[in-house]
């Protein structure tokens, strides 16, 4: 384990189960940030609630650990108010696709320059083993007692259909790929989705390390990641589930670049003077 990055927290109590896929994701993230030479002061990690959503507490950078399902709205606003920050919204599949599903849809439409990392373990871990939006059909849980009857949510197809500029998937055990895709996603200008398959060793007895290894396959090198329809077809493949970059194409402008507040003045809002007395006085006089 690397312990010399500027992101290390030292000796802390981590609330994840031994062997959890989250550890791999945490390490990959620290390495990715280090590789990009990001100052912890310039990075904001936004998360919701759940085991995955605790990740901001385990590395040293600015954090906004908000409500369940609500990581994307503050992440969007943080970037819009201060575009100089690097903003990563990171949580689990239940958080991003279930509770936060509406924000997932509309954040993609907004195209903020943020990275959306999802720990996708196909189960609710912290609430002890209920189905998540990405649980496979038939999985038996204490609530879905005869097996899951809902069709699994496909974040890759959804993001692609909504026009996300960067859509990729990886497996937490594959540190190199995970780190590489994190770097690509963070560098990408615009909304970038990185869905990370991750085993839940305590509650998901179906989608184990072995299951993922047997049911994923790297995307063929002849896939053209700028081909949106091709990416969509690829996203529908279920066995094996493709990992790698499905789609990558930068729009000319990200959300904040299209805002009137930045059309002439590029400075973050906090640096701007708020003395509006002259303009406002003029405006009030015109109400005569």
């Amino acid at each position, binding site marked *: 384990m690397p312990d010399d990055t500027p992101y290390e927290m030292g000796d802390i109590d981590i609330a994840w189960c031994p062997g959890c896929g989250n550890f791999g994701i945490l390490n990959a993230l620290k390495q990715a940030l280090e590789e990009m030479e990001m100052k912890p002061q310039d990075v904001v990690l936004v998360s919701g609630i759940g085991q995955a959503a605790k990740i901001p507490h385990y590395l040293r950078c600015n954090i906004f650990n908000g409500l369940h399902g609500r990581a994307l709205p503050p992440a969007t606003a943080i970037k819009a108010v201060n575009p100089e920050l690097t903003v990563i919204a990171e949580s689990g599949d239940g958080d991003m696709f279930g509770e936060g599903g509406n924000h997932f849809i*509309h954040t993609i439409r907004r195209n903020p320059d943020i990275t959306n990392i999802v720990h996708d373990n196909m189960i609710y871990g912290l609430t002890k083993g209920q189905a998540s939006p990405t649980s496979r059909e038939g999985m038996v849980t204490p609530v879905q007692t005869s097996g899951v009857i809902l069709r699994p949510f496909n974040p890759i197809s959804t993001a692609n259909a909504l026009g996300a500029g960067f859509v990729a998937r990886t497996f937490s055990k594959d540190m190199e790929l995970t780190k590489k895709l994190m770097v690509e996603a963070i560098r990408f200008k615009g909304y970038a989705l990185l869905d990370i398959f991750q085993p839940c060793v305590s509650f998901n007895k179906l989608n184990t390390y072995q299951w993922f290894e047997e049911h994923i396959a790297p995307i063929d090198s002849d896939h053209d990641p700028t081909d949106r329809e091709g990416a969509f077809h690829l996203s529908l493949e279920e066995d094996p589930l493709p990992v790698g970059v499905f789609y990558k194409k930068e729009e000319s402008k990200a959300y904040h670049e299209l805002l009137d507040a930045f059309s002439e003045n590029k400075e973050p809002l906090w640096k701007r003077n708020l003395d509006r007395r002259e303009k406002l006085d003029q405006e009030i006089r015109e109400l005569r």
Partner: protein
Amino acid sequence: MRYPREGYSDISIVICGEAGQGIQTVEEILVKASKRSGFHVFSVKEYMSRIRGGSNSTSIRIGVDPIRAPVRRMDIAVPLSKGALDHIKWRSDENSTILLDSNLADEPESYDHGPVVKVDIKNQTKEVGGPIYENTVSAGLICSLLDFDKAVIGDILKERFKDRQEDVYEKNLKALDSGFEIGRSIIEKGEFNVDLKASDETEDRILMKGIQSIALGAVSGGCDFISSYPMSPSTGVLVGLASRQKKYGIVAEQAEDEISAINMTLGAWYAGGRGMVTTSGGGYSLMAEGLSLAGMLEMPVVIHLAQRPGPATGLPTRTEQGDLFLALFSGHGEFPRVIFAPGTPEDGFNLTARAFDLADRFQIPVIIMTDQFMVDSYTDLDGGDLELKFPLRHIVRTDADYLRYRYSMNGISERGIPGYGEGIVNVDSDEHDEEGHITESMITRDLMMEKRMAKMEALREEALKPHMIGDGKGDIVICWGSTLETVKEAVDSIQENISILHISQLYPLSKKVNEVLSKCRRKICLENNYTGQLARLLRMETGLSVDHTILKYSGLPFTVEEVAESLGKYLATNGGEN
């Protein structure tokens, strides 16, 4: 008929028509024309939740003294559509003149109140260019009856229509001529006499709607971010700030839902912006979890809650003061908050600006409560009463050892933002330590709860004093928010020694409230709701009970007459000691 009526100094005019008929244009023209002709003016609309059809009305009072409240009295009525007269005839009496279009001659089936004067608005518009000019013809007609200078209205039409196609302005001028023509013929017949003395005291005054007062107050308070979901009657603030994005450097976003809106706004404050949301009851309910998050993160946020009658969708375009308890108790857990309820547009402006300062300094949510009546009220005022200040961002440059939630005596820790300084800024919805990291330590929990709640002491010290009118020795009428001016005029109209206590900061309450209520005689609480929420809040906070409540929950605001009658009745039946 002579106007103003004996004993009055203003004329009350009601225009009623279908949605889409341009009643609001008439309102706009008449309000501006009145002020520019040397009169004080007040107008407010009541409307249905639809885009076309139905019956909507605008009531305009024009007078020689400042006017701020709606009356039931109707001096001149202009029904412009089928069903319009039926909609407003409950307000008429033997002194109400109905200017009834000859095409609506059958309307209503029974009408036996005041004089009906036939007018030819609809036929006139055929010559000008069609029914869309009915509003300008009507405005011209009324202005002519009031003896306003036609050139003044011409200027208003020019300002309003100058950016449209060329002939729009020309045709409106023609419509104005037609209206003036109709008015002149009525006056010539001697059926109508208006005697209002213009003065020059309104020349320098400005015209403002309640909703504008909130939007401009936000600009004044240094708002540079708003995220909201459209919902009547709150949307005007989002529209107002969106139209000023470039001018003042404001980010305005229409969120996918209210949950997103408030969470975005908290993100904006975290990154150094100054954000607000604007919403009504239903949307506010969706924001409750976000409000609680603001409490835990100690994140400033300003919330404009424009009330309308609930529960659920209720009456979407009507008014009520039914959400005081919602504002007070919303959000799980315990955390400090401040609630304002402006009673005038001046208050709306100044309190909204103050909300930003208070939210920022104390790192708390501040809620500004208005209602449909308040936001749609339109009146003249002295622009000098709007306090223009230079707001400061209460943020600090962080050092390497910065702690977002460092313990302090008054509960306030210096607020750093990411990217400004060497520190790391952590905020967490879990209970957290000084650094902002998740904790389950019970000792820390106690300390953090005490730190957050410690702010209440200073907040109470800074609480706005209630607005007191009268000596407070006799009976007192207690009210909050939008009802102030109606109560004032009603109390003025009855010959009794009654004082008024208007509370514009509902939480935390100023100590002064307790003082006043301990000394007065009978306490009468007037509210636009069913349960008397302020009366209950007063009992909760001061231990004092009111003697009587005057409540209304029909969806319409109180009128001056209604308040005077209710008060009179109570005072008469309980004339002695109770």
